[in-house]
């Protein structure tokens, strides 16, 4: 207890930290954590700090990769809750399928001490929507994914492009043409996944206030005007010949090789760029995403995750202490932000002095101010339990539309809406 108190007084939020971590420092045991990529590394980075408080808990973080974490989690739940870790990472968008189909697979965190409801006000309300069912709290919010444009300062200025003047997607396409011209077509302005993912479509649709489903999760809305505009923009970008097509790995290869000048992603991509291309330090910057029309919304969210505790865990107390340390303390959240760029959803952490600091890797830009500044404008969107099904249909629809197999974006999305409706049993909204 002395260690906790010592640490608590050292921090501005002393009483809050001590309260949140109120666990027995003599807790013993081993816990396993499943996660992916940067997120796994960020949790790993929190183990030393956690072990200062709980020296007798051994934490093993396993990086399974994003899709495998989801697949194995579902398979484990479907098999009645076997072969699951003590702490499980889940993306907010994909989370609801677990609680709706397998209500007993994960621990209701309100049944643990201290109850999860005591953490409620520490996070923004929207982060809880996909993590709770009635009075049950199944997971604690972790990070969020406010979308920004990560760009190469040197390439932009060589091509005479000023990122402050890129306000709409038309401006972005013009910038892409300039960059292509200035580099003899060697450098593209961005990387779009086509045929493997629909993440650009989702980001642009979210920006326009549209998503696969309405926010109640009761109807399919993928053919509404905001989504139509988003899909049209994706095709315009590809047709202009100014973007590369590729998935997660191709994008990393491209920015390392310097053949792409911009990456658009949730802000958690910060750590991916910084840790994969340390040699490009000082050459990068960020600016808000362009809008679909002048004066339009320049914010969206992609990703953002949470941590849950499977009901089969034999060490729930230790798992719960780790989850609370990593997610519900400023220390835990700022560690992950500093080292791997995970954007905290803990409100206290977003006000931490660290987010005001200029970042050397990013040309001394105060990037976290820019990024967190967009959070308030992000339109709400809900993954629902059918997220993966809708996504699979949309990946195909986008690829077909880009290949010219539909007369218009509206026709493509009408077809997608029909398919999603069939797959989910939800009606298409009028």
């Amino acid at each position, binding site marked *: 207890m002395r260690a906790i108190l010592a640490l608590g007084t050292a921090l501005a939020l002393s009483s809050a930290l001590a309260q949140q971590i109120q666990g027995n420092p003599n807790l013993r045991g081993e816990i396993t954590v499943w996660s992916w990529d940067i997120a796994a590394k960020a949790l790993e980075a929190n183990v030393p700090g956690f072990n200062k408080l709980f020296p007798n808990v051994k934490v093993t973080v396993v990086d399974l990769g994003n899709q495998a974490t989801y697949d194995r989690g*579902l*398979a484990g739940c*479907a098999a009645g809750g076997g072969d699951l870790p003590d702490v499980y990472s889940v993306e907010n968008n994909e989370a609801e399928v677990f609680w709706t189909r397998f209500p007993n697979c994960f621990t209701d965190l309100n049944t643990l001490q201290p109850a999860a409801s005591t953490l409620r006000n520490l996070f923004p309300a929207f982060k809880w929507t996909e993590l709770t069912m009635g009075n049950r709290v199944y997971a604690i919010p972790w990070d969020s994914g406010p979308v920004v444009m990560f760009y190469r300062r040197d390439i932009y200025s060589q091509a005479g492009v000023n990122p402050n003047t890129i306000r709409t997607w038309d401006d972005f396409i013009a910038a892409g043409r300039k960059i292509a011209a200035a580099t003899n077509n060697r450098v593209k302005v961005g990387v779009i996944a086509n*045929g493997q993912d629909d993440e650009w479509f989702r980001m642009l649709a979210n920006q326009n206030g549209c998503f696969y489903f309405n926010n109640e999760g009761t109807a399919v809305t993928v053919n509404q005007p905001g989504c139509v505009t988003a899909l049209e923009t994706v095709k315009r970008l590809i047709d202009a010949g100014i973007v590369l*097509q590729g*998935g997660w790995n191709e994008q990393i290869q491209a920015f390392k090789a310097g053949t792409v000048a911009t990456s658009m992603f949730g802000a958690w991509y910060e750590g991916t760029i910084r840790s994969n291309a340390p040699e490009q330090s000082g050459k990068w910057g960020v600016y808000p995403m362009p809008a679909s029309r002048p004066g339009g919304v320049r914010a969206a969210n992609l990703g953002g995750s949470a941590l849950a505790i499977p009901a089969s865990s034999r060490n729930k107390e230790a798992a719960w202490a780790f989850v609370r340390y990593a997610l519900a303390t400023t220390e835990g959240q700022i560690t992950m932000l500093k080292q791997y760029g995970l954007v905290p959803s803990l409100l206290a952490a977003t006000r931490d002095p660290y987010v005001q600091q200029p970042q050397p890797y990013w040309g001394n830009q105060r990037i976290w101010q820019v990024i967190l500044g967009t959070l308030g404008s992000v339109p709400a969107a809900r993954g629902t339990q059918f997220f993966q099904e809708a996504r*699979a249909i949309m990946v195909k629809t986008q690829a077909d539309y880009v290949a010219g197999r539909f007369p218009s974006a509206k026709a493509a999305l009408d077809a997608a809406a029909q398919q999603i409706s*069939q797959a989910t049993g939800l009606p298409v909204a009028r």
Partner: protein
Amino acid sequence: MKPGATPYLFLLPYLAVFALFWAWPILDSLLLSFQNTRVYPPVWDLGVNWGRILRDSAFWDALRNTLLILVIQVPLMLTLATALAVALNSHLLKARGFFRFAFFAPVVVGAVAYSAVFRLLFNQNGAVNAALGLDFNWIFDPVGAMVVIIVALTWRWTGYNAIIILAGLQNIPKELYEAAEMDGASPWQQFWYVTLPSLRPVLLFCLVLSIIGTLQLFTEPWLITNGGPGTATTTLGVYLYRQGFQNINFGYASTIAYVITLLALVFSLIQLRLFGRES
């Protein structure tokens, strides 16, 4: 105890395993196919899955991809396997044992390992592009990805079929060839009029196995292309897995499984009708 019961007692261990791990899942999946499993707990809804499958364009894509592989890959592989078997059977060939093992070896290699190797070979910076002097993105092109799957399947299963056909070749009585030679038949005529007709039952066996294998195809498209790009290499097996284990819709997955079973049944009956009359 009646003496007639003894054989059943001996069969009991097998029957118990069969009932638990075969009969019950088969029956249960039939029942599941008539339930809406997208809600918790699942509810009876006779038409929800069987009605959907008729209108589900993703299912028809998967069926088309599977049939495409069937129509191109199976004849290609069996032709190669027959040629290979004849070569391996030839008295002119030295170190026959070694070659027989070498061509059979791909089946022994773990599917995950060989799929990873194929991904690397057909990578944009991979050995295949280097050898052909191309810069083609095989895995992310719809046609390219299908070519990779077909090449991979052919690499893995040709030797296996060749060994089965080889066994068939060795069962053909030597007298037939001697008689053919006496009648002045050329080697090509011998192959066409003696070897092939005698191989008919073996080839039919290989064909049935290959068609059933292709209808259930999962490993290669899952590990090499993940069913993509888009749904370009999504087979019925991959689609079934996605519905069952990614979307947790076991009712619909069971419906797809029954369609695959019905297809396999229909194909097998057609083959027996067309080719299998005398055997």
